[in-house]
């Protein structure tokens, strides 16, 4: 069962992409496309890209080098889209408050630049797991993308925790899914790209990656489908005189 091109293998490759396309459809159907344009683009293009790679894997007329070229294009596109999604979540959580908007942008940009540098250095130390640069390069690119992605996601979680900012449901769900996927993929691609594991181990890692991605798509599905609990708040009616009194008190404090 845990073999390449088994039924489970094909299911885990194709099903998450179909679910992701459904997520994209739900986003569009619920009028969330303006709120989450980057995630919508990611859901459509990443799913289609993965399906194209799956087709290229099966199609007999696609040569091995051409298959890896398709993988490269899909990786670059997927990586770019994921960074756009992270940027979108960052904007939703941090840039709505003018007091921390600018500093958080500077911090995230600076940290992102450091992560790119770190990932580049780590990739430079990697010796590659395959004599063909097209294959080993793809593996190192996976590792590089996931190092930067994991770093940025952790930074966002830490920054929000430091400022005690609460996440809106969709942003949290999107980032949680990306975080789980990034951590597991970073570990597996780190091993594949640097430790040259045996063929059977690689297949097991591929299963783990695909199953994790499936789980993440289900997480996105859950956060999109299950509505947020509405907490009933009892707001006391506002007596006009209290407002005036406290506004005067506020002005007195500001003028001290």
């Amino acid at each position, binding site marked *: 069962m845990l073999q390449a091109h088994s039924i489970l293998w094909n299911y885990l490759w194709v099903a998450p992409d179909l679910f992701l396309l459904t997520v994209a459809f739900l986003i569009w159907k619920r009028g969330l496309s303006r709120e989450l344009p980057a995630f919508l683009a990611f859901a459509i293009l990443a799913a289609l890209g993965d399906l194209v790679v799956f087709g290229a894997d099966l199609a007999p007329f696609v040569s091995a080098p051409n298959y890896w070229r398709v993988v490269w294009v899909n990786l670059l596109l997927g990586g770019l889209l994921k960074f756009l999604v992270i940027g979108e979540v960052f904007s939703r959580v941090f840039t709505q408050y003018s007091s921390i908007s600018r500093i958080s942008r500077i911090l995230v940009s600076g940290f992102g630049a450091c992560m790119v540098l770190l990932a580049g250095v*780590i990739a430079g130390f*990697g010796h590659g797991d395959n004599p063909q640069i097209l294959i080993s390069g793809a593996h190192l690119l996976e590792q590089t993308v996931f190092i930067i992605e994991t770093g940025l996601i952790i930074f966002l*979680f830490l920054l929000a925790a430091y400022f005690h900012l609460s996440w809106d449901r969709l942003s949290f769900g999107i980032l949680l899914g990306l975080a789980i996927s990034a951590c597991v993929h970073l570990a597996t691609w780190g091993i594949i790209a640097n430790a040259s594991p045996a063929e059977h181990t690689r297949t097991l890692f591929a299963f783990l990656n695909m199953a994790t991605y499936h789980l993440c798509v289900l997480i996105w599905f859950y956060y999109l489908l299950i509505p947020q609990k509405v907490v009933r*708040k009892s707001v*006391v009616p506002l007596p006009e005189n209290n407002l005036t009194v406290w506004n005067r008190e506020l002005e007195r404090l500001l003028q001290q």
Partner: protein
Amino acid sequence: MTLALVLVLAAALALVLIVGITISTRIQLSPSSALARKVEPIDIEAFRNLVSSAENDYLRRRLPAGEFRSVQRERLRAAAAYIRVAAKNAAVLVAIGQTALSASDAATADAARQLVDNALLLRRNSTIALLRIYVALAWPQSALAAAPIVHGYEQLSGRAMLLGRLQNPAAPVRIAVNP
């Protein structure tokens, strides 16, 4: 192999960290009334005296250099303690303000937004001020520029009281002890 091991460990740590932050954030979510009780009052005048440059100059003139450094360290430690409480209060007020952001009443929602913005600004300023204080602890002769914190805290106090009054006229949130 070593690199692979490092990356696996980093990934595992990252996952634990993210799960930990997620769980702790969910646990900390308590009702606004319970949160409001976590706010500690701060004596702004006492803090203002501690960070006053005129007071520093006076002490520098009156005390021998060694004694001044020792006194200055104590004053800086006390100021840092005040700022830590201010930062903690700001965090609580961010949480209170965020729960009120979705209020149907526009005035409450607006007051909540201003409160959150001010609390975030104070938290940011507190971090910078604490860094400056730690630097000043290492070099007591350096000037301590924590004045914006005092102003920020006064503003925040006003916003918190306004929001507290808007949500519940009987129980205002008071975070500063005024002279």
